[in-house]
């Protein structure tokens, strides 16, 4: 069982930071809606307040790690230009996608949208975390602010979902491969 270094980084970026962030979004939405709703009778305890602060802080870290690894580690491999006379485009995913009309839109729409829209996720969740850090349980007394935070978390979920979907499809059509090979397990010989 082997994996290339570039594949490993792509997995860390997408399945590690990105997918974990997507899953965490639903938890944040439920917690913000259930506990901080102004007509909810249950008081927000210090423990609830602390939990949501830590939860959102972890989401902020995940969101920034996802976009930064994507933009500065994986994207340069994706957009690499093949040298003159290259006979295979396998190591140049963007060029590989653009070489065929049946795959070019994965780049021109998929990657072009993903690479920009995904930044709305860390911006939105950083704002949400900052508001929760500042207001804590008092957020319950500011229903309009709480609704705005909820709205931004929804948009962050959407942006991360768009990036996740196109990331998976791009990697299916033109995987980012190359770099040193890492052997994970030695298979049995038959």
């Amino acid at each position, binding site marked *: 069982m082997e994996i290339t270094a570039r594949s490993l980084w792509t997995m860390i970026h997408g399945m590690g930071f990105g997918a974990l962030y997507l899953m965490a979004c639903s938890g944040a939405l439920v917690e913000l809606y259930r506990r901080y709703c102004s007509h909810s009778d249950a008081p927000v305890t210090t423990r609830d307040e602390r939990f949501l602060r830590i939860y959102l802080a972890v989401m902020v870290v995940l969101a920034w790690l996802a*976009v930064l690894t994507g*933009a*500065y580690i994986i*994207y*340069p491999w994706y*957009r690499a230009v093949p040298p003159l006379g290259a006979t295979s485009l396998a190591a140049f995913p963007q060029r590989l996608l653009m070489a065929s009309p049946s795959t070019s839109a994965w780049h*021109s*729409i998929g990657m*072009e*949208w993903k*690479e*920009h*829209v995904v*930044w*709305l996720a860390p*911006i*939105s969740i*950083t*704002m949400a975390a*900052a*508001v929760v850090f*500042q*207001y804590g349980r*008092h957020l*319950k*007394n*500011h229903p*309009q*602010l709480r*609704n*705005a*935070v909820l*709205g*931004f978390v929804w*948009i962050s979920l*959407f*942006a991360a979902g768009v990036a996740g979907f196109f990331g998976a499809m791009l990697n299916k059509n033109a995987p980012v491969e190359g770099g040193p090979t890492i052997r994970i397990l030695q298979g049995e010989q038959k």
Partner: protein
Amino acid sequence: MSAHTPSISGDARTADARDLPNGPGAAAVLAAGIGSFLLAVFAILADKAASIKSLMNFSKPTGPLSGVTTCAIVAWLAAWALLHARWRNRNLAFARVSAIAFVLLFLSLLLTFPPIADLF
């Protein structure tokens, strides 16, 4: 007891709301809208103007995306700091601020979508 008599929890809510003005929250929400919108604007500018594209090339391996996102983040944080300094002790008409922030956020979603960005 009259239905209009405020409950203890009602009084507490009023006191809490008075203790914490909505200004800092409004600043954070509006700045996030501004930052998102500017990201889309910078992306369109870098795509349409060759001179801006080369200016945005902060990191050669990543290309103009590095400059577009760095500029948007700097603008977002600057807007946040500025609005926070102005609004930190104020209570604002939050619905208006929130509406502007969501319009900007919605526009940023639209403007980052390539078929719409290509109309410019």
